[in-house]
């Protein structure tokens, strides 16, 4: 009996958390469609004007282009740099491996604000601050290790025997890679790419510290417009938030076809 009550309490808490999450999200959505909304459970009249307003006033076309460009570049580079490193870390044993793993682990557990400020200082010194290249370089710092750690278990699942068999049958290193390793790694690459993509689009701290006039991603632009506040109607900011949310949710839905939800957080070993 006591066990039952205990489980009930757990479910009530989780239900509360889920409802609160849905409340937060749907409040933003409802507000973005409201004509005026103050102190009532629902707005008296609905409109879609705020989307048009947000699109023109916040220059969303340009912001979205920049965001997508940054996100795709980061995904491409993170995979390009992370793929070979993950291969070696998964396959080989050498003396400095634990140290290397620690080094790759640090950018993921140290808060971005802590290393973001020295990183921004360094990049501004080389004239990269405020540029799209600067944002890409900064966001890559946690994304390269993320790609490495997501790809590693996928390599571990592929038997070394397959590579050896290929080599015995006369395949060169390049052929083993192209014909054996790469096709088997497609699910891993997809998973890593999606995780990097979602994390890049929702990354705030690093993108914020390095953003200039023409290199604001959607989240950063959302933040700045919230503070231009006062002059901007809150409904238009919510409209922008909904556009951002739609993008992330769409990606998340695609991602969940390939990725287990728990893969999105660290595993404690």
């Amino acid at each position, binding site marked *: 009996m006591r066990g039952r009550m205990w489980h009930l309490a*757990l*479910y009530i*808490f*989780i239900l509360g*958390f*889920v409802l609160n*999450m*849905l*409340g*937060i*999200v749907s*409040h933003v959505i409802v507000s973005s469609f409201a004509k005026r909304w103050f102190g009532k*459970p629902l707005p008296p009249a609905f409109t879609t004007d705020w989307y048009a307003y947000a699109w023109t006033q916040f220059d969303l076309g340009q912001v979205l282009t920049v965001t997508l460009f940054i996100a795709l570049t980061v995904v491409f580079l993170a995979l390009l*740099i992370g793929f*070979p*490193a993950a291969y*070696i870390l998964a*396959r*080989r*044993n*050498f003396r*400095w491996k634990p140290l*290397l793993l620690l*080094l*790759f682990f*640090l*950018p993921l*557990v*140290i808060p*971005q*604000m*802590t*290393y973001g*400020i*020295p*990183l921004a*200082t*360094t990049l501004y010194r080389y004239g990269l601050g405020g540029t799209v290249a600067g944002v890409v370089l900064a966001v890559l*710092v946690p994304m*390269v*290790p993320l790609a*490495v750690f997501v790809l590693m278990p996928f390599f571990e699942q592929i038997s070394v025997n397959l590579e050896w068999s290929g080599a015995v049958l006369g395949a060169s290193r390049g052929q083993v890679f192209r014909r054996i390793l790469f096709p088997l790694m497609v699910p891993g690459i997809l998973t890593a790419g999606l995780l990097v993509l979602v994390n890049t689009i*929702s*990354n*705030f*701290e690093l993108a914020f510290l390095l953003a200039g006039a023409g290199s604001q991603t959607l989240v950063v632009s*959302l933040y700045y417009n*919230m503070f231009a506040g006062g002059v901007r109607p809150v409904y238009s900011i*919510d409209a922008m*938030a909904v556009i*951002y*949310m739609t993008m*992330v949710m769409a990606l*998340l839905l695609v991602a*969940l076809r390939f990725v287990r*939800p*728990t893969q999105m*957080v660290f*595993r*404690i070993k």
Partner: protein
Amino acid sequence: MRAAPVRERSEFDLLAIFCILPALLYVLCMFVYPFMYGLYLSLRPMKADGFSLANYFSFFADPYQYGTIWITFSLAVPTTIIVLLLALLMAYGMRRGFFMERTITTVLIMPICLGVILLSEGILGFYGSQGWFNQMLQGVGLIEEPFILTHNYIGVMLALFMQQFPFCFLMLLGYISGIDPSLEGSARVLGATPWIVFRRVMLPLIAPGLAIAFALVFVMSFAVFPSAVMLGQPSGATRSISIAAYQQAFEQYDMSYASAIAVIMGLCQLAALLVIILFRRRMSTSATMGVGKR
């Protein structure tokens, strides 16, 4: 004569170097080097020539600046403890799978994916004095005046909780569900009550994971920035140390002082991590001792 120690054959050949190098160089250039440069810069104040600790002295001489350390600790420590306790309870209760597991975990990762800005904007609306939460409570007749939950200390805690709870819960769930269920079964067969099973068998096994989760959640909460600005009072009660560093860097353009604050922030996080590691060591020895004695 002692036999030479058997060394594992090193498999570090040219290919390995070639493959590792890009990632290693990237982390060294963009992560390690900026840290070193920041440390160096913090020791070269703008106002003086040469090396000096002037930035650190002025930080610890100004209550408006050193007060941020206390503010940040008082935000991060309670949040971490609440998050950890609730996540432990939930994860422990659900360690053998639960109803609608996949749906619930999907909703739980939503705040992680949506990011802090959207979350803060939503909390501002939902928990604001005119938001649904207060309207609901007033509608039921529980309260007369709305609770003030935003633009203060509670607002920031709320945002931190929403961000950190899912992360911590899923991490602990993974850890706890990985513990061999036969241990628990044996304890039950030997007549232990559920509480004794938790206290004597499971908790010592969970403790190391719990310590890591504590450290990660604490360090992340300690760097609280956007939610402290959006949901708190960034010039008063919730002026966290990140805000202080940001203001020096991008409002005063004193990169040297900003680097000093970033170094202090990093040291505070490091100190907390060391405490956890020491604590964890004590915990695991006492756990093994406990087993040995009985």
